[in-house]
């Protein structure tokens, strides 16, 4: 009596990106109708440039949220990484490659420490990363001596350069960001590691009982997230052309917002990293579109608030229909 249907190509995780995508399209159509400059290649390229830093941070955030954690320290880690790369290359005269590697290593290191605190002492991720946020923030300002670092070597700004696609200038950084999303979509969706991350987020106890080394996996996820923050640091540095100790202060909440807008559950185990890309784009489109429409900034805040709620409401309602 096993009524097995022909194995349809259904998705691994039952959280579709359809909802967030619908919200994104609706938003784009809305702004397209209200602003003549919105639907242009250069504007789209701009939006991607504007969300690439938060988007990349949000990749790491997605990993951590999938394990039922949360990371408040990612913006701070990125800022520190940016300072390390630029200061070592400019002030300490290290070869740019080494400076870059050092920056990536430092970011991974902070991720590692986060992971160890979460697993070894079983501290809640919220607290660990909140503490880390303060610590790294302070270290950034102490180490940088509040100096913005300028005149960077080409290696550190290369990702800000553009190439032509038709009429439109696209930065290498945008490309790298998209690539990263695809890589992580692949890792999460098509490798054993990805499935373990989902299982861990579903229930650490179940994951442990099925023979997953949950502590090692968790530490790995946090470290990898740290590494991704390092890449975000490079993207930031390339985009702004400076090492800025003030950077990233609101990026922790912004990256969580992108993840949640993308349909990933804050309780772990459910969600897709591609949703996060959509979520980041939703925020970018809102900001860009409202500014193009010339809405005064306090009203931008007001409308963004409403739109964020609406975007997820669209998602929810589309799911209800699907039932």
């Amino acid at each position, binding site marked *: 009596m096993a009524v097995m249907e022909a194995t349809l190509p259904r998705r691994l995780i039952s959280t579709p990106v359809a909802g967030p995508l619908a919200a994104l399209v609706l938003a784009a159509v809305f702004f397209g109708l209200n602003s003549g400059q919105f639907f242009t290649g250069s504007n789209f390229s701009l939006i991607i440039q504007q969300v690439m830093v938060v988007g990349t941070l949000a990749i790491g955030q997605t990993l951590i949220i999938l394990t039922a954690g949360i990371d408040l320290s990612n913006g701070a880690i990125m800022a520190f990484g940016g300072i390390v790369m630029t200061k070592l290359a400019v002030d300490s005269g290290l070869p740019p490659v080494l400076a870059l590697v050092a920056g990536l290593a430092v970011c991974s290191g902070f991720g590692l420490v986060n992971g160890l605190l979460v697993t070894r002492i079983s501290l809640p991720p919220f607290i660990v990363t909140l503490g880390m946020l303060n610590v790294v923030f302070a270290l950034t300002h102490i180490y940088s001596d509040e100096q913005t670092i300028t005149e960077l070597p080409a290696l550190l700004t290369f990702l800000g350069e553009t190439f032509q696609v038709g009429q439109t200038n696209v930065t290498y950084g945008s490309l790298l960001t998209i690539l990263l999303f695809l890589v992580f979509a692949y890792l999460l969706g098509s490798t054993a590691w990805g499935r373990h991350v989902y299982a861990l987020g579903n229930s650490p106890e179940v994951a442990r*009982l099925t023979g997953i080394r949950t502590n090692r996996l968790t530490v790995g996820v946090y470290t990898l997230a740290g590494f991704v923050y390092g890449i975000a640091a490079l993207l930031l540095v390339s985009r702004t052309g400076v090492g800025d100790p003030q950077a990233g202060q609101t990026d922790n909440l912004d990256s969580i917002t992108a993840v949640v807008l993308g349909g990933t559950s804050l309780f772990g185990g459910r969600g897709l990293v591609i949703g996060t890309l959509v979520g980041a784009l939703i925020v970018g489109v809102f900001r860009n579109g409202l500014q193009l429409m010339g809405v005064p900034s306090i009203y931008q805040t007001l409308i963004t608030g409403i739109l964020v709620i609406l975007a997820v409401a669209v998602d929810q309602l589309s799911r209800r229909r699907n039932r």
Partner: protein
Amino acid sequence: MTAEEPQTPAPQPGVARTPVLQARGLVKKYGHVTALDGADFDLMPGEVLAVIGDNGAGKTSLIKALTGAVQPDSGEILLDGRPVRFRDPLDARKHGIETVYQDLAVAASLDIATNMFLGREVRKPGVLGSVFRMLDKKHMREESARHMAALKIGLRSLTQPVESLSGGQRQGVAVARAVAWATHVVVMDEPTAALGVKESGQVLDMIKRVRDRGTPVVLISHNMPHVFEIADRIHVQRLGRRVAEIAPGDHSMAEVVAIMTGALQVSDGKAVVADQGAAEAIGLS
């Protein structure tokens, strides 16, 4: 007799063989609740050993300690006569011990195939698998379908997340997984509790097949007919320790139940009345 030196009737007469899995004096306390109070355990090669006992007798705690899911406070565990320590379930699994836990241990939002292969995913052949570590989803899905079909668990879709399966279907997934992977010992904590008559029968058949391929099985069950149908020996757990090891042939079902509840005690392979009132209450004398 004492729990420390239990009366072991030899179900397989002849040579004394080393137990596959053995435990001595396991103790496990949760706060002020003592779940295991010096429990012993012996699993002989190729047998089906039933573990029975009242609710809260410590059966689950016992097998969790044996399979690395919890760390006993004291006591020792021997695998093939050698002391072992399983730091986590993976350690036990590496020794070929597979377990169906009472609370099933399935990842709710993942589908059946993913759950079946969790922790030992199959990669695509060639570079795709070795370098890109790509999973062979099709293979895993087909294999899972085969295993589920062997249990005759009715499924209307293979790609549902397991959280949307019926209770029995979910249990089927857990059982199929354990059976598919075990090479040394299979431990099942009430594997048929949520299963229908037909599906239970399949699981019992499956257990027999596993035993016939030489792998011993530990079966926790409250279903006495099942136990008597399939068990070579019965381990009776009571108040956190083993109070008897008996062969189903030597005792009636009523006697076994009486031993379980403490109305009878086993002495030299014979059941003697321990608690007159209790024994009379259940119609034994």
